[in-house]
């Protein structure tokens, strides 16, 4: 038998029960990568030697009769903006080429303790800025469902790796939809946990008031299992919540939705949404109703301002966070610089790609003297209104159902000329980052041309357990086809 295509939970059970070894699992997944990744290019780095060594250590642990962790022997693909000690971490940027992480991110340390196996680092839009992974400074990643199409982004490599069967579990980061949107476009499950549920220590920061690490998987149960491992308080991330109990993520999927109140935000079914996406999402809503959920229309009136709000706040925070890339302590240093000023300007000018520079410029402008109040402070006020919309909605409903993205996967180059059209890919995912709530994308159908469609389920802050249980119940009712 092959372990390719098994869920993370089934692999962990098989390894701890002795049905197969962790080394077999690693070898099979590495062979699959070797065979198929040339046509997809999900990985920036494949960790062949390290993965086999880690897997053998798990097998040795089992042989010694020690208790194995919850993800024992599970191959995990890691977005290349999350640090694994001793492994190159590039953010798919020229400025970080050759940077070898000096420590493990908190999520990596937790996965290590759970006996997971790191199989590789995945491609992303440079510094996680983008919605198609086309902004990687290295190469483009193809959508495994249709290789002429993008996998979404910015965690496009992670979503493609899961869809292509290279790993049952991948880590991504989500600042405005970067886990959920690529998961939707690749037919995978993508969870953005509540802001503060998962530590960001060791995630290279993009926009700190929005960034959240989360799993991309093939099943909702695996997303819950992953959250139970990576979630929890970290004293070294001052925004991580001391109250969140990651174990609660493991609620069983309910048999029925009787008593569940589901809101359908009318602003999420806008003009311009692809008709096949709308149809699939409406059918998904009917599945919730069939299971007994009571649905009602709700209004999130400030949603229409979310993109503008986001494209002031995120670039502002990015311009500040990315000031650290100065060619002094790490990363690329320009060769011909004569003065310190020139070291900064040339190293950054040569090292950053176009989208990163565009956002640094925009953020610097929004924060600059004379413009701060009109742009950054204004956006933070509108953010409060967006958050209050959700608070009002969650006073009367338990979950919200929306499309994850307005269209299925698009062709390479289709949106690269016009940044604003690319930014619209995240119109339905950005509000959850601004409000800090929990949000997941689950596959809910295919277009006539065979491209996956994602349903987004949103829950209030720290209701990640309820969200995941509902996602698992939906998945049971509407099984989704897999790529072989």
């Amino acid at each position, binding site marked *: 038998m092959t372990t390719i295509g098994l869920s993370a939970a089934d692999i962990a059970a098989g390894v701890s029960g002795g049905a197969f070894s962790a080394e077999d699992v690693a070898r099979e997944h590495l062979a699959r990568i070797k065979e198929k990744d040339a046509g997809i290019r999900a990985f920036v780095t494949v960790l062949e030697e390290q993965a086999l060594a880690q897997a053998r250590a798990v097998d040795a642990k089992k042989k010694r009769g020690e208790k194995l962790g919850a993800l024992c022997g599970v191959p995990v693909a890691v977005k290349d903006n999350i640090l694994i000690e001793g492994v190159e971490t590039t953010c798919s940027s020229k400025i970080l080429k050759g940077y070898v992480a000096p420590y493990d991110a908190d999520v990596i340390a937790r996965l290590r303790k759970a006996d997971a196996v790191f199989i590789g680092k995945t491609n992303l839009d440079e510094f996680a800025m983008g919605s198609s992974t086309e902004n990687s400074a290295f190469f483009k990643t193809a959508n495994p469902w249709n290789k002429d199409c993008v996998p979404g982004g910015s965690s496009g490599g992670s979503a493609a790796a899961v869809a292509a069967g290279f790993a049952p579990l991948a880590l991504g980061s989500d600042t405005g939809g970067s886990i959920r949107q690529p998961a939707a476009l690749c037919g995978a499950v993508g969870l953005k946990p*509540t802001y503060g549920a998962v530590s960001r220590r060791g995630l290279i920061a993009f926009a700190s008031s929005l960034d959240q690490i989360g799993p991309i998987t093939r099943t909702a149960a695996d997303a819950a299992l992953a959250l139970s491992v990576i979630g929890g308080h970290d004293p070294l991330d001052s925004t991580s919540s001391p109250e969140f109990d990651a174990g609660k993520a493991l609620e069983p999927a309910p048999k029925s939705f009787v008593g569940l109140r589901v809101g359908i935000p009318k602003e999420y079914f806008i003009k311009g949404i692809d008709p096949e996406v709308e149809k699939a999402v409406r059918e998904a809503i009917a599945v919730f109703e069939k299971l007994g959920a009571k649905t009602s229309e709700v209004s999130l009136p400030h949603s229409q*301002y979310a993109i503008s709000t986001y494209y002031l706040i995120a670039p502002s925070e990015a311009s500040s966070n990315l000031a650290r890339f100065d060619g002094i302590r790490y990363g690329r240093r320009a060769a011909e610089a004569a003065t310190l000023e020139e070291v900064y*300007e040339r190293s950054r000018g040569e090292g950053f790609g176009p989208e990163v520079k565009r956002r640094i*410029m925009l953020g610097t402008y929004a924060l*600059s003297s004379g413009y701060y109040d009109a742009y950054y402070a204004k956006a933070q*006020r509108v953010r409060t209104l967006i958050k209050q919309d959700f608070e009002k909605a969650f006073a009367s409903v338990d979950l919200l159902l929306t499309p994850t993205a307005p269209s299925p996967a698009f062709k390479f180059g289709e949106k690269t000329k016009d*940044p604003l059209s690319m930014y619209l890919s995240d119109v339905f995912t950005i509000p959850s980052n601004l409000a800090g709530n929990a949000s997941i994308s689950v596959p809910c159908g295919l277009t006539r041309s065979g491209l996956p469609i994602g349903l987004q389920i949103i829950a209030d802050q720290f209701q990640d357990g309820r969200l995941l249980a509902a996602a698992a119940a939906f998945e049971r009712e509407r099984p989704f086809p897999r790529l072989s």
Partner: protein
Amino acid sequence: MSLGLEDVRKIAKLARLRLSADEEALYREQMGKILDSVAELSRLDTADVQPTASVSGAASAWREDRAIAFPGAEKILSLAPEREGPYFKVKKVIEG
């Protein structure tokens, strides 16, 4: 809204980015369009709205200020493009 070339150069200077003439022209045009688009926020009256400071409502996280040994200092130093012993090396910043 239209940005002047001088505005773009000033922002690039503040951001410590060396841009080519082509990049200056491109960002001038694209940023103008993006700023036009985000100007929709001015339609909202937010005079009585508090700006979001912490989205989770969490209070500041305090902990005791205790020194903890970090074993990876050499690994961090070895990532520097230029170093001298236990120091990062930079260009001279003070004349004299």
